[in-house]
C-alpha cells in the first residue's frame, strides 16, 4: 500500500484546481462469499467534479467493485461511499435507483443494450424512467456520437463500436453528474475502442466527470488526467498526470511492477 498516495488523495480532495469533491470512499471494504474473498480492503479515495479518472488494475483487483459501490449497485461491507454529498449507505433500494437515475451514467464493457428496443428507445430509457420525454435530446446525442442514422435499428444489427456509442448516449441522456465506464473498450477492436475513448474524451472536455475502469494502462494514461491503480483490493498508486508530478510512462511502469508481484 502506498501510504503517501492515499494521504495525498485525501489532502487534495478539498477542491484542487478550483474543483469540488464529488465522490468520497472512506475506509471501504468489500468482502464476497462470506468473507473468504476480499474485493476491496479499506480503500479511501475522493474524486473531484470535472475529473477524468481512470481506475486501473488487473482482473480481480477490485476496480469494478469500486465502480459498483460508487454507482450504488453494490453496498460496501464496511466504510462509507458518498457521491455529491449523498451517503449511499443511507439510501434504500428505491433511493439508490433514483440516485442512479438522477446522477449516474453507466457504460458497460458488453454494452448491455436492451435487445428488443431500438437504438432510440434504448437511449430514451433512463429519461423515461425519470418520467421525462426527451426524444430531441436523444437524437442530438446520437447525432453528436455519429450514429443518428441507426436510431431506429435494433442493437443486434449494429457493430460493437456502434453499440457502445449507443450505450454512451444512453448514459448521457439524463445529464449525469458522474459517468462511469467499466472497460468500455474491452469488447471492441482497437479502432472502435479508440473511437469510443475519443468520444469519452470529448464528453469530458465539455465538463463531464468520468470514472473509467480499465486494465489497459496505455488507455488509461492516454485519456485520463488521473490514474488510480488498484491491486488486490488496495490502492497502490494515485497519479495525477496533468500535474507534471508523474509521467504516464512512470505510471505504466508502476502498474506493471504491481501487477507482477
Amino acid at each position, binding site marked *: 500500500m502506498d501510504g503517501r498516495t492515499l494521504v495525498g488523495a485525501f489532502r487534495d480532495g478539498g477542491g484542487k484546481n478550483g474543483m469540488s469533491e464529488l465522490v468520497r470512499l472512506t475506509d471501504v471494504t468489500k468482502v464476497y462469499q462470506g468473507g473468504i474473498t476480499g474485493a476491496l480492503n479499506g480503500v479511501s479515495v475522493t474524486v473531484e467534479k470535472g475529473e477524468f479518472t481512470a481506475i486501473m488494475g488487473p482482473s480481480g483487483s477490485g476496480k469494478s467493485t469500486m465502480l*459498483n459501490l460508487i454507482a450504488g449497485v*453494490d453496498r460496501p461491507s464496511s466504510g462509507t461511499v458518498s457521491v455529491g454529498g449523498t451517503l449511499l449507505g443511507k439510501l434504500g433500494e428505491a433511493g439508490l*435507483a433514483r440516485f442512479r437515475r438522477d446522477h449516474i451514467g453507466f457504460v*458497460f464493457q458488453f454494452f448491455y443494450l436492451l*435487445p*428488443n428496443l431500438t437504438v432510440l428507445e434504448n437511449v430514451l430509457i433512463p429519461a423515461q*424512467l425519470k*418520467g421525462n420525454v426527451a426524444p430531441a435530446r436523444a437524437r442530438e446525442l446520437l447525432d453528436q456520437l455519429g450514429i443518428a442514422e441507426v436510431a431506429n435499428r435494433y442493437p443486434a444489427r449494429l457493430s460493437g463500436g456502434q453499440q457502445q456509442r449507443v450505450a454512451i448516449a444512453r448514459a448521457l441522456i439524463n445529464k449525469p453528474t458522474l459517468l462511469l465506464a467499466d472497460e468500455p473498450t474491452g469488447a471492441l477492436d482497437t479502432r472502435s475502442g479508440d473511437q469510443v475513448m475519443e468520444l469519452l474524451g470529448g464528453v469530458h472536455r465539455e465538463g463531464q466527470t468520468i470514472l473509467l475502469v480499465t486494465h489497459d494502462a496505455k488507455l488509461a494514461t492516454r485519456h485520463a488526467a488521473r490514474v488510480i491503480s488498484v491491486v488486490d483490493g488496495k490502492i497502490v498508486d494515485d497519479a495525477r498526470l496533468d500535474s507534471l508530478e508523474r509521467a504516464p510512462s512512470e505510471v505504466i511502469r508502476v502498474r506493471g511492477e504491481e501487477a507482477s508481484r
Partner: protein
Amino acid sequence: MRAIFVKTLADLRRRRLQAAVIFVTTLLAVATGTMALTLIAQTRDPYQLAFEAQKGAHLQVGFDNRIDPSTLVGTPALIGASAHAGPYRATDMQFQSGGHKYAVTTIARDNPGGDVGQLRITGGHWPSSGTEVALTRSFAELNHISIGDRLKVVSVPQEPVLTVVAEVVDIDELRADVGGVQHAWVLGTAIAPLTAKDASFYLMDYRFASDPTSAQLQARMNTLRASVPPDSVTSSINYLFVRTVFHVSTEILTGVLVAFSVFALAATAAIVANLVTGIVISAYREIGIMKAVGFTPLQVIGVFVFQILVPAAAACILGIPAGTILSQPLLASNSQALGLAYQPTFSPALDVLALAGALLIVAIAAVIPAFRAGRLKPAVVIANAAAPRGNSGRWLRRLASRARLPRPIVLGLGEAAARPVRATLTLLAIVLGVATVVVALGEARSFNKIYTYEGHIGKVDVVVAKSPALADSDATQLINSQPETTRLVAETTATITVPGIADPVTTLGFRGDSAALGYLLSPGRWFNGPGEVVANRGFVQDAHLNLGDTFTGTVHGQALKLRIVGEVFDFTAGPGGHVLMLDWSTITAAVPNLTPSSYMVTLKPGSNVDAYVRRLAAAQPDLLDVQANSTGNTAFLTVIAGVLFGIAGVVALIAVAGVFNTLLLSTRERVRDTATLKTLGMSPRQVIGMVATSAGFLALLGGLVAVPGGVALYRVLFDQLSSLGGNITPLAFYDVFAPWELIAIPLAGIVVAVLAAIVPGRWAARTNVVEVLHAE
C-alpha cells in the same frame, strides 16, 4: 441411461420451483380427471345391480278403484310380462310428524318379497300389525323420521296413528331428494281405515324377460289400456324414467367434471409445454455442453422430458388416489339410496388408465418443445448462453409508447408478447381458468334459477296442503280471512288420458290468478279460459301436436276437448315426462267433485310470513299443512354448486400457476436486462410494475377471450344438462350474468394475475446487478 438419470436428478434439484409447478398442476388435473372417470365408470352399476337384485318392475301401473281387481290378474300375460306383483290396493295418505305434514302413497302389502319389486329392508322389520308402517329410507332420512316414530294420519277423520317399524329401499321409486310422492307400506288388512272416500286405487308391477325399450313399453301400455275399461289406467311409471331420474344428478356432475377435467388437463399441458420451452431457451449453453460431452439428441430430449415426468408421476401417485377418494361420497350416496352396502370403489384398471393418460399428455406436451433441444448444434449453442431474445412485442410496445404510458408499463407490455408461443400457451391456461369460472357461475345460477322458478319463489309466500277431510270452502275461507292474504291460487292434480301418449298425463288444474305464478311459455301464452291448456315440450312432441291444435283427453271417463295455447317450461315432469296445466273450470267440467290439494298464497308486501304460517296452522292443526315457501330441498343444488366451484377453483388455480410459471421463465430469461434497467435507475417498484404489467396484460387478453367463450360454453353445457329434463331451456334461464359481472370477472382475473406476479416481480426487483452483470 445412467447419465440421463444423473442429469435429470441434478436438473430437478436445480429447478425445484418449476418442478413444484408441474407437480401441483398435474396433481390438480389428475385428481379431477380421476374423479370424473370413477364416477362415469361406477354410476350405472349400482342401480343396475339393485334393479336385478330386487327384481325391479319394468312397468308400474295404477288402476282406478272402480275396476275389478280380479281382471288385473290376466294383464301380465296380455302384455307379455314374465312376472308380476299385485294388484296392491293403495291410497293417497297424509300424515303428521314432528309438526310437519307429509303426503305418501300407502300400499297394502303383506310382505316385502315376491317375484317383482322386492323391497329391501335396511332397518327394522316388516309391519306385523295394522298400526305399523314401513317407509322408504330416502324419505325417512330426508324428513328426519326414524323407526319408532309415530305418525298421525290426518287424511281420514278417525286420525289413526301408525308406528314406523321399517325403512326399506324400493328400486321402483324415485329418490325422495329428487322429488316424487314416496311410498309407504302397511298390511293388507290395515289399508281400509287409512283410505279416504274415493281415494283408493290399485297398483300392478310388471317385469319382462329382458329390459324393454321405451317404444316397447309404450306399445305394451297401449295394449294394456285397450284391454281394460276406458280411463281405468290412472298412472304409470317405467324403469327407464326411474333410472334416468336416479342418475340425473350424477350425470350432471359427471358432465361438468368431464368438461372441467379436459380443461384442467389442457391447461396443464400448456403449462408443461411452456415450461419445457422456457427451460430449453434458457439452457442453450448447457445443451451445447451436454452434446459436446457425448449426449445424443435423443438423450438430450430424454433429460428434458424426464425432469417433467418425474414430478408429474409423483403428482399422479398422489392425485389418482385423491380423485378416487373424492368421488366416493357421491358413489356412497348412490349406493345408500339404493340400499346397497357401500364399498369403497378402487379400480386398478381405471387407475392405470388415469396414470397412463396423464403421463402421456404430459410427455407429449414436454416432448414437442424438447425436440428443439435435441436439434440444436453444439457449436452454436455453446457460443450463445440462451436462445435469441423474443422480439415480437415491438408493435405493442410502440403502441403503448405512443399512448405515453410509463416506461415500466411499456416494457412490461412488450415483454408479455415477446415470445408468441409462450404468450399463447399462457393465454390458453388463462382462458381455460377464467372460462371455467364463468361456466361454473353460470351453471350454478341457472340451476338455482330453475329451483326458484319451479318453487314459485318470490311469487308465492306460503304453501298450504289440505287434508281431504277438510272442505275446500272452509280452507279457502280460512285463508282469505287472513288480513295478509292478497292472492290465493288453488291447485289440484289429476291424470288425463291422451291419444298417442301411453301413460296418463299428470295434469295440474289451477283456480285463481294462476298466470301470476310466473310459468314461462315459449312459444304461446298462459291459458285464460275453459278448454285451453298449456303443455310441456315432451307432451307436445310425443303427442305430435302443435300450438293451436285441439285434442280430446279423457278424465274419469269424461271426454275433455282441449286446445294447446302454450308450451310451458317445466322440470317437474322429469326426463321424457308429460304435464298439462289448465284452468279449474276446464277440469271440473269433467270432474265436478274435484277439490284442491294445495293452495299457493301470496301475502301483502312486508307481511310476517312466519307469523302467518303459525296462525294459519294453528287454526287447523290436523287438516292443514302450512309451510313458508322456499326452495325446499336444495341438497342437490348445494352438491352441484360445491363441485362446480370446487373444480372451477382448481382450474383457475392451474391457470394462476401457468401465469406464475411464465413470469418465472420470463424474469429469469431477462435477468440481464432487468439488471441493466436497475443500473439505469429502474426502482424495485418499477421492476415489479413491469412484471405485473406482463401478467395483467395476458390476464386481460385471456379474460376478453374467456368471458364470451365461457358464456357460450356455459350455454352449450347448460343446454345439454337441461335437456336431461326433456326441455328446451327458455332464454330467461340464461340471463344469469349481470353486465358488470362480465366486466368484473376479467378484472378479477387481472388482479389474480398481478398477485401471481408479485413473487417473480420481487425476485426480479431483487436482482443482484453485480452478480448478474459480472456473470457475463
